[in-house]
């Protein structure tokens, strides 16, 4: 079914193993790198990325083309290329699926991005739960090095690039760029507010480019097929490229699907995922992980791309679609999400560190029949204030609560007035 849409990143995905270097080469792998190292100059790579309107796939949706441009020509060396494979956004597992399918696509993408900013050191920051992927990467990096696609004087050019895998100790905040850079330096991974920006003074005080796995994986294809081709992949005009959507929850066929940006939510659910489980009705979904707000049946046909979701005050995030049906209690769901943020808050700034446990307490009381009507304005104010936290963790964390109070206030009131959860009765 999904085959009707062009497959780029997962085209050669196999059920049980990765695409080997040989297979990857057959499919045209590393050609982009050869082309760049032999006949293309750095600026050209950067220009293509900008023209392709490639937006960061890690959640923030920042234009990759602009980011590479921000590394100053005369910036000091060594420069670092960090691949963010932390993927701890609840509901998200696209990087995992991809890494178990196309490690060389990532290696090539990283090398291209690194080349464009003259980075000599590459680091893949990976969460401990993905140990199998970490092993695969280390193995394939060695192979790539042996075949001359990595290491010193790649393809006899004057360009050297090494990649190492860095295993995290496991914390959600480590996915945030500045926290990740601290983590890599063996410092407590609290975020660090810019300036300076990582592309200016990042790892060990040197220019550092941080990109998500999926973002980097797109680069070889953009370099090879051009910006226009990439833009044409998307269904909506302002969007570009395909996206690895992770659909989980109350659908028949949860999983990771590569689909064009701009595809309708309804189509994802019905066509790709075989519709709702046991004929239940769609009640809501989170479009892009725990840090995004709920979409309701009103949004059922929304185009899934960065712009369209921004228009309805939401975010595409990581494209992790978590689907709820009419049996699910949205208060309980939001409580579960808030528990996550309370547990993972790094503890640096007050609103997040203390605010999430506070909000969790309020939601828990509502869910368990101890709530009061005054909780609702209280939570609204607190959520608003959590936006004034130190980093983007907290604003993401309150998204579900805020949208709960917008779209499901009746359900919340039902809990409060009924002194308990209507779904448990």
């Amino acid at each position, binding site marked *: 079914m999904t085959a009707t849409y062009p497959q780029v990143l997962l085209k050669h995905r196999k059920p049980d193993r990765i695409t080997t270097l040989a297979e990857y080469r057959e499919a045209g792998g590393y050609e982009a790198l050869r082309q760049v190292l032999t006949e293309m100059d750095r600026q050209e790579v950067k220009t293509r990325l900008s023209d392709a309107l490639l937006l960061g796939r890690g959640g923030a949706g920042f234009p990759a083309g602009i980011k590479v441009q921000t590394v100053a020509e005369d910036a000091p060396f060594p420069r670092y290329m960090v691949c963010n494979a932390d993927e701890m956004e609840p509901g998200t597992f696209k990087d995992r699926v991809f890494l178990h399918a196309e490690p060389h696509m990532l290696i090539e993408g990283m090398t291209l991005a690194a080349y464009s900013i003259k980075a000599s050191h590459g680091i893949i920051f990976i969460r401990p739960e993905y140990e199998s992927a970490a092993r695969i990467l280390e193995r394939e990096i060695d192979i790539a090095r042996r075949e001359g696609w990595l290491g010193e004087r790649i393809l006899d050019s004057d360009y050297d690039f090494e990649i190492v895998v860095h295993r995290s100790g496991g914390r959600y905040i480590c996915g945030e760029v500045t926290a990740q850079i601290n983590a890599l330096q063996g410092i407590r991974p609290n975020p660090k507010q810019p300036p300076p920006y990582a592309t200016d003074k990042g790892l060990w005080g040197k220019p550092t480019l941080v990109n998500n796995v999926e973002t980097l994986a797109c680069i070889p294809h953009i370099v090879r097929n051009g910006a226009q081709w990439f833009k044409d992949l998307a269904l909506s005009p302002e969007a570009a490229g395909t996206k690895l959507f992770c659909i989980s929850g109350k659908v028949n066929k949860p999983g990771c699907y590569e689909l064009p940006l701009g595809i309708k939510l309804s189509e994802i659910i019905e066509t790709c995922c075989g519709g709702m489980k046991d004929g239940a009705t769609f009640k809501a979904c989170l479009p892009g992980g725990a840090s995004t707000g709920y979409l309701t049946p009103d949004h059922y046909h929304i185009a899934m791309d960065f712009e369209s979701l921004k228009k309805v005050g939401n975010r595409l995030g990581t494209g992790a679609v978590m689907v709820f049906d009419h049996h699910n209690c949205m208060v309980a769901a939001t409580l579960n999400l808030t528990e996550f943020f309370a547990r993972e808050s790094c*503890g640096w700034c007050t609103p997040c560190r203390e605010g999430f446990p506070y909000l969790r307490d309020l939601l828990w009381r509502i869910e368990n029949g101890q709530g009061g009507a005054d909780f609702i304005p209280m939570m609204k104010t607190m959520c608003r204030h959590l936006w004034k936290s130190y980093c983007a963790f907290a604003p993401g964390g309150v998204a579900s609560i805020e949208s709960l109070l917008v779209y499901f206030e009746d359900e919340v009131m039902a809990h409060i007035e009924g002194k308990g959860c209507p779904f448990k009765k």
Partner: protein
Amino acid sequence: MPKLIIDNREIDVPAGTKVIEAAERLGIMIPRFCYHPALGSVGACRVCAVAFTEGPVKGVQMSCMIDAQDGMVVSTTDAEAVDFRRHVIEWLMLHHPHDCPVCDEGGHCLLQDLTVAGGHGLRRYRGLKRTHNNQDLGPLVQHEMNRCIQCYRCSRYYQEFTGYRDLGVMGIGSRVYFGRSAPGVLESPFAGNLIDICPTGVYTDRPSRYVGRRWDYQRQPSLCIHCSLGCNLTASARYRQVMRHEARFNGKVNGHFICDRGRYGYAYASAVNRPRQAMAAGTIGATADILAGAREAIEQTVERYGPVSVAVVASPRSSLETLAVAKQACGRHGWTGLAVAGTARQALNQKTAVDRLRPELAVSLAADTKAHDVLVIGADPLNEAPMLALSLRQVQRHGGHVTVIDPRGVRLPFDFDHWAVHPSSVGAIVQALIQEIGGGGASAPAISTAFDVRTLARRLNASPRPVVICGTDILTPREIDLAADLAQALCRTHKVAGLFFTLNSANTFAAALTHDASVSTEAVVDRIEDGSVRLLVAVEQDLWRDFPDRKRLQAALKRLDHLVLLDFVDSPLNHTADHFIPTQPLYESGGHWINQEGRLQASSAVMAGGEPIEVTGTLDHPPRVFDTRIPGSEPIAAWQAVAALSEESVENQMQLLKTALVDFHPAVNPAPAEAAGQRIDLHAISPARVESGVPTLPADEDAPADAIILLLVDWTFGTETLSAMAPALNKVEEAPAARLHPDTISRLGLEEGRPVTVTMNANRLKVPVQADARMAPGVMVIPRHHLLEWQIFGETRVILERSQLKAESA
């Protein structure tokens, strides 16, 4: 100069000023927890939120994180900002134990103040409180983690500012914990500042625990007199007893902090054995009578043997007032003295340092932190002047570079170059440096290639702001002169070079202005021995502890006709002296001190004095005596006692003090009250070099080959006379030991851990041996520790022959 508007008031501030600081200049105190001027901004607590209504920044933002910029319009009273700050306070109070009634911070607690100011009066949160276990952090600092509001000040101060690595933050989220990996004594000798810097009661002053609320105390601006830096502090007294020291901000000297020697060194003032009554040969009498008796003795002695037979020695810890009156007395009556320094070398060292400290070179402790390159010669900052180490730490933090030329195993809380050279080669190296930078001077003898003089000279010469720091304890006048020459030579390459001396005591600078280098206590003892001095007046000069040859001293004192002692610390001599007058420590007398950079500073009296409850009982309530006079209030200011000895009628003592201060020294402002805080005009110090009857010092060079040099030195804790009497500090001081380079240990046939017995003119000192690979070979270092009877050597820098050392079996 950005111009901005805060709460409708306009202000210009230097570029780079944070909005929170700009507001402060307008007298608007924006709430803050994580922000501290010494630590800078990190934006963690979020309580400094204000609204930016116009200009480059918009919305509610943290005023500590944003630089003041042109056209900014800021409101601290904006409804959203106020409500946000209220919430921040509420969040911070979620887990706070509300134990203010039993919290020592209560009453001067920033959290308390901001909770009230923030309008968070009623608890809304119905969840449980998270609790923590506390740690035993040692005898100085009390830990109570449940009060913590996670401002991160302590970990940032401790690790970033002081450079120690045993206190920090652990855990995550709402469970972050500030403390050590395991309970134990804090390693930093600056740990006490945690108490001042913590905005609530997580770290409180342990010795003064539960003693009183801030408003119960008599509080006065005071000074630390436990080294020559003169750090400013606030002394708190209650029940006629000094209970606590806190750092007092002085931008020119100590900044926001003090060291633990200064913070906890006050116990001597209320020591149970502090002499509080006048005595004649051990029998208690009225102060007035004993004074009269002493005066009579003086007159008789003068009559029989002439004025020079009366000698006066004073102490470098005495106030300027005391030194001035004593100097005047000697001058008027032609008495011998005033002697302050212990030995000829020390007298010469101090005089040389003070004479060479030219105004264009002198820098302050605070200015040191701005230096780019620092060369430390013959000084051990952490042990001799602890806060200097903290200043140097800042130099290194700002990218500057510190090099230390010293034979000791110098340790500093940051990376620095250490040239562990034998004392006898220090001069040669400095000379070589001077030549390298084209300062001329005598050609330097060849020096070990281990030290890259050329590179160092280049760095210093190229540095936009080099500072030469020189000690005066272990060196000889020659090296001190050379250090000054070096600083001057650096000046020639037209840039600001600085010169900074450390001296041996709080008022040594003033003392050096009074005495001529030929009179030291040692010289006075000579004259006692040859019978030309028959009566000795020792003013707050603790001969027993400080004179480097106790046996010789005792013998000499026996030959005297009369011994007159004035002091506020106990000493066996007090009880045998013919006349003993109890004096007041600075907490009772107040006074002025001149620190090592020549800065004249005032210290107010904190309390009237009298028997403290330390003496009268269990610290619960002062004694219930009903009398018009305070029990134990006999001690008088030392300068008054001296005045009484010098003048028949002491009606107008004040007048006498005035003239004494006027005559004291042209450089010293007659009315210190006005001059206090300023560096005295060093121009007025006569540059005339010390000549008159300068004693010749034994040169190390002509020492036998197998000889080693012994240095008796200062340690952070346990050596400085007054602070060594503080029980709290006794608990953290290191046990005394003789330190040598491992090679020297084996060369001398000694053994690490085993004691060595050092013999000096038939006197013995037994002390355990410690190896220190960072030391220069051929050197032995022994602390002037209060637990050691080190006073057998006659000097604090002596040559020892192999035969004087004997290895002992443990």
